[in-house]
């Protein structure tokens, strides 16, 4: 693997960049692997990387039906944070955040993780109670969390309209939260996993599972059967389809989620600002675009498109909260498919089929978890025992009732 640095860049510049290697190989699938990871998004590639780097399993393939990072990895609003209410969520998202903090160096690939600070606004008494509870829980889980006053919010975002329809009463600040470059995460993990021997196979669609005695033995793909000791499925937007192939159902529904960016402008918004009550999630990218998370439609769809009224319902609150953006322009809107569970928490663990593991259901918030999710999933697959951080996210919780209901806790009064 070419090492990336300012020196390698200088060296290659001399030769007009003719000598850069492929970021990852394009191998033909072998007949069998120790582990096959289905899904070449951030989570899948991270899983493969940690299998190879931390678990000593290098005979690994990642099969991806399209192109790497083409699903939600490349379609989200790139927010990274770990300010969750429940211990279980804090566990996995904080594990991820700690990995984010050293990820560029670990992968030798600049994923541009920028802890620029993340504000979560409170607009009514109920919101204040909610951030009060969550802020306290985050702090007691050993994660950074501060309450800030409207005045402090105004200092961080001078053009915010504190006196909007639901006046800003306060905010929860996570200084270590921020954004990262989404594509780079997939590419960085792919490059490092490849260097450790992982075969990354694009344009290879899984069409079925080989299951004998309720134990998975391989996957059928558009490029033939690939044998596997163990299979890990990490497919946002299609987990239900794969589960169907393996003969079981998931408590997941796939719905469209949209996002949009404005035209690029010079830096004006430094931190990430999220508001639940005046539904607006906004940050400014390094290119200068305002990156705005829209809502999800509530109907199932795999079309990667959403409805225009969602865009209207997204831009309205943005202009209410930031009136100066009224003359900004929407440059691009797009949709992804998010797999939503009823408690808005992921499913990560074993399935009814032996040696077949699923990591799915991340809903609207999977990007931030990428390193942590991949890491604990890799360890779970390698050991055949679910990593303690992942344990609460078992599929069985939907039978026992042990939900991790971040949604219910945060959104009751709306």
């Amino acid at each position, binding site marked *: 693997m070419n090492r990336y640095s300012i020196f390698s860049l200088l060296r290659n510049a001399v030769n007009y960049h003719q000598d850069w290697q492929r970021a990852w190989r394009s191998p033909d699938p072998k007949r069998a692997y120790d582990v096959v990871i289905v899904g070449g998004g951030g989570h899948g590639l991270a899983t493969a990387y940690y299998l190879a780097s931390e678990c000593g399993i290098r005979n690994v393939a990642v099969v991806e039906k399209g192109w790497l990072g083409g699903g939600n990895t490349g379609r989200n609003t790139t927010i990274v944070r770990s300010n969750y209410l429940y211990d279980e969520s804090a566990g996995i998202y904080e594990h991820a955040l700690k990995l984010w903090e050293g990820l560029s160096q670990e992968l030798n690939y600049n994923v541009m993780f920028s802890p620029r600070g993340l504000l979560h606004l409170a607009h009514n008494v*109920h919101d204040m109670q909610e951030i009060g509870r969550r802020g306290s829980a985050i702090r007691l889980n050993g994660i950074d969390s501060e309450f800030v006053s409207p005045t402090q919010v105004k200092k961080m975002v001078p053009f915010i309209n504190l006196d909007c329809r639901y006046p800003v009463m306060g905010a929860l600040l996570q200084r270590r939260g921020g954004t990262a470059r989404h594509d780079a995460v997939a590419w960085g993990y792919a490059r490092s996993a490849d260097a450790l021997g992982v075969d990354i196979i694009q344009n290879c669609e899984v069409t079925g599972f080989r299951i004998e005695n309720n134990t998975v033995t391989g996957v059928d793909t558009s490029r033939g059967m690939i044998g596997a000791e163990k299979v890990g499925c990490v497919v946002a937007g299609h987990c239900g389809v794969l589960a169907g192939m393996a003969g079981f159902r998931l408590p997941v529904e796939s719905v469209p989620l949209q996002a949009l960016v404005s035209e690029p402008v010079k830096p004006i918004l430094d931190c990430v600002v999220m508001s639940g009550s005046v539904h607006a999630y906004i940050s400014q990218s390094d290119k200068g675009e305002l990156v705005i998370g829209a809502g999800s439609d509530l109907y199932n769809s795999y079309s990667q498109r959403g409805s225009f009224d969602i865009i209207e319902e997204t831009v309205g609150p943005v202009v209410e909260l930031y009136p100066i953006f009224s003359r900004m322009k929407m440059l691009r809107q797009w949709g992804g498919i998010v797999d939503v569970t009823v408690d808005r928490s992921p499913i990560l663990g074993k399935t009814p089929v032996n040696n077949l593991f699923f990591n799915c259901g991340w809903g609207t918030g999977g990007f931030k978890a990428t390193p942590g999710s991949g890491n604990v999933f890799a360890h779970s697959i390698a050991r055949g025992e679910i990593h303690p951080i992942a344990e609460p996210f078992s599929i069985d919780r939907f039978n026992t009732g042990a939900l991790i209901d971040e949604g219910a806790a945060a959104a009751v009064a709306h």
Partner: protein
Amino acid sequence: MTQIHRLPRGGRINRDTPLQFRYDNREYQGYEGDTLASALLANGVHLVGRSFKYHRPRGIYSAGSEEPNALVQLESGAHTEPNRRATEVELYDGLCAASQNCWPSVKFDLGAVSSGVSRLLPAGFYYKTFMWPASFWMTYEKFIRKAAGLGRSPEEIDPDHYDKLHAHCDVLVVGAGPAGLQAALSAGRSGARVILADEKPEFGGSLLSDPAVLGGRPAAEWVDAVVAELGDLPEVTLLTRTTVTGYYDYNFLVANERVSEHLGPRNRGGQPKERLWKIRARQVVLATGAIERPLVFADNDRPGIMLAGALRTYINRFAVLPGRRVGVLTNNDSAYLAALEAADAGADVEVIDVRKDPDGALVAKARDAGIGIRQDSTVAGVRYRGGRIRAAAVMKLSDSGSDVRGRRDTVHCDLLAVSGGWNPTVHLFSQGKGKLRYLEDQHCFVPGARSANNPGHEAGACKAAWTLPACLARGAEAGAAAARDAGFGGVVAADSPAVDEVPEGGMRPLWILPTDHPVGRGPGKHFHELHNDSTVADIALAAREGFVSVEHLKRYTTTGMGTDQGKTSNLNALSVMADIRGLPVPEVGVTTFRPPFTPLTFGAIVGHDRRELFLQKRKTPMHPWHETNGAMFEDVGDWKRPYYFPLPGESMHDAVQRECRAARTAVGMLDASTLGKIDIRGKDALRLLNMVYTNAWDTLRPGRCRYGLMLNEHGMVFDDGVTTCLGEHHYHMTTTTGGAARVMNWLEEWLQTEWPSWEVYCTSVTEQWAVATLTGPGARDLLSSLCDRPLDDDAFPFMSMQAFPVAGIPARVFRISFTGDIAFEINVRARHGLALWETLIDAGKKHALCPYGTETMHVLRAEKGFIIAGQDTDGTVTPMDLGMDWIVSKKKGDFLGRRSHARTDTAREGRKQLVGLLTEDPVFVLPEGTHVVEPLRDSPPMNMLGHVTSSYMSPNVGRSIAMALIKDGFNRKGETLSVSLMDGGSHRVTVTDPVFLS
């Protein structure tokens, strides 16, 4: 001297109306009908901006919405807009614009140092560096952010307003060029309801830039006649300055009309700046035309280089000849029209044609006109100085076209018009989920199969009809077919006017024009994408590093990600990648076109739904009294509820303490109108209650009330309230304020989808009733003074309802209580609400009546240990967790959520349970949300047992009180635990029963 490049005659400008404008602090003059770009060119200004990454000087490249370069900051202050395309901005008197992304000026830009070190900045360079030392990224990033970003965001409140409307039509025609006009005419004559939309200020499309003759008259006259006829058709709506930006499912299209932008910010005359049309059409005819394809050669980005079609537009439409010596570089015949028209306008013209032996009719015509033609040649570089090009270096091509040969000739030119052929404008078609098809012989993508959701037709250049007669005929057919498909019989296609057809020769598909050094390895840069400074070398690097999928290519090189969305660059990028990989173009792929076609103003998306109209404020009938009497309000859902009623100089704390005391010692009065109310009737109403509440309802007699908890199927509490039997099969249900709509939907969902045979009718009557609640020891006396009936416990027992007039107003009075004291909830018709309230206030003076708000309501109920659903519950709490087993019937059989209580986690011991907490220091009020920990440590992390759900200073208990959900809470009563506070401090608390006042 002004307008030195303006031609003495011609054009669709109004020379009688000269307009003054400022650009980069210099005064210029143009004419009505100009765009900012045409006016600048008329004044000899080519250099208008700096590029995104390398800060290279850039000029005006096109004449339309595809413009990648000429982005300006329009106006200043509150009216400013970044990144406006000078080619689209119509000139108005006093217009003021400035170049962007440069400092201190567009001519001398310090950011251009990045151009000097451009070899260090290939595609994706940032992924490879800025990683050391790790802590420095935020510093690096600060500079990266500053360097990017183009224009500046407005920083003041938008003074303009925007309109938004829905429209429905039989046929929407997008684009009013020859094909679109013919389509609209054919459809319109059939009587169909037609909307014709075009992004330009006048209809005609390419005909406005074309001296063609149609049916024996100039094109413009033909256009005028067609537009006049369309204008007379009653069902036809004509929209100029209207860009159809988005094509969504089921023929739902979004169009943006720039209503008054062209009048300038000071002359809008009260009109909205823009208007968003949300159009639902039975049929959509796309006649969106084509966008010219640039040629990629060394330093093809210099000011003074523009598309050949744009040159035609500037000459014919705006009467501007932007250069005196014009070079034309082409791979096809269409650019010869530009050469001929430029020569006609007085320019010295020389054509550089990459084809070996061009032989079309237009080529012959150019030769006849004495225009020099260098065939089998290319431009190998340009000389640039002082804001525009001065000359082009021309060389012969090798046989394959991949190298140059011979010597470098200099062609002196101050303008270089280029044409690489034309790409159908398929963006909307693709947005509408149509599948694109690659035409091998034409080297372009065209519409293929439509989505079944989006019926319609395409016509004209957007479907690769390249000649005017073809556009006219296909347009007429498409319009007729659309009307027919929309249900209009007997439609005939409009006749096409006679046009001289000039047959065109073929093109030579060379996508990378060589120079005398290998592409990407010398001083000259080959830009396939001008907006984001992406070069052929970048694509080669992407291919080398394995970013070969079209989406990877796009993301790695940022091709097509600029404000122009790659309108001129996408196909060149694909073709270059195809060349490098040795694949046919369609196998490289095509990127997804996403809305909007051109950027869409946030304000237009919002329309009038802003400020006061952003979201409704719901107010109770008593609201005017609350306002005049100084209430502070709380947002509860969309309602404005009185939070507390401070006396002059009183703090919230003081006000709430006073209100609490008054309600327990005299009479308190609450505006409870916001509570959800549902009228339930029908012979199966009782069955419904038994299914949606946890307790049994069979014994509830008319006139009696009962409290109920509602669960979802997970078994968790989601709402509560009192329901009253009004008569046989007739009930009045109340819900929480925030839960009213949810409960109503919940009942309907079950009734309509699971129990459709049950006879139950639910009607939301929340807003039909105004409610004043009297509570406290004086409540009965006060109410007695306003009615003529006994109110003692025997005559009017607790948990019952009676209907009688209160102060002469017909009322339903409920003797129920959320304070634990005797209370009467007086419900009257909403229109009497204010009168009732004011009467009670007056009559209450004798009884020391005190109106109180929601905060006091919260304290009073907490004193008695009553829960608030949504505050003491959060969707994870069962009735048992609340210590309310008593309300869960064991006998009545099934009800919603019941089975879930038997699940292992829901039935287990030690769940979080609702308890009371008393602080060690009785005046210390725990912040709500604070967690109880065990054990307490010096610093986090700490094991959390649960959190404080409600916490108040209670004057009636004489100390602070709190409720909390903590693990195994019921078994901890009597224990002393610790809470850990945000500031790092801690406090001791004793676990108690949550009833503080008995």
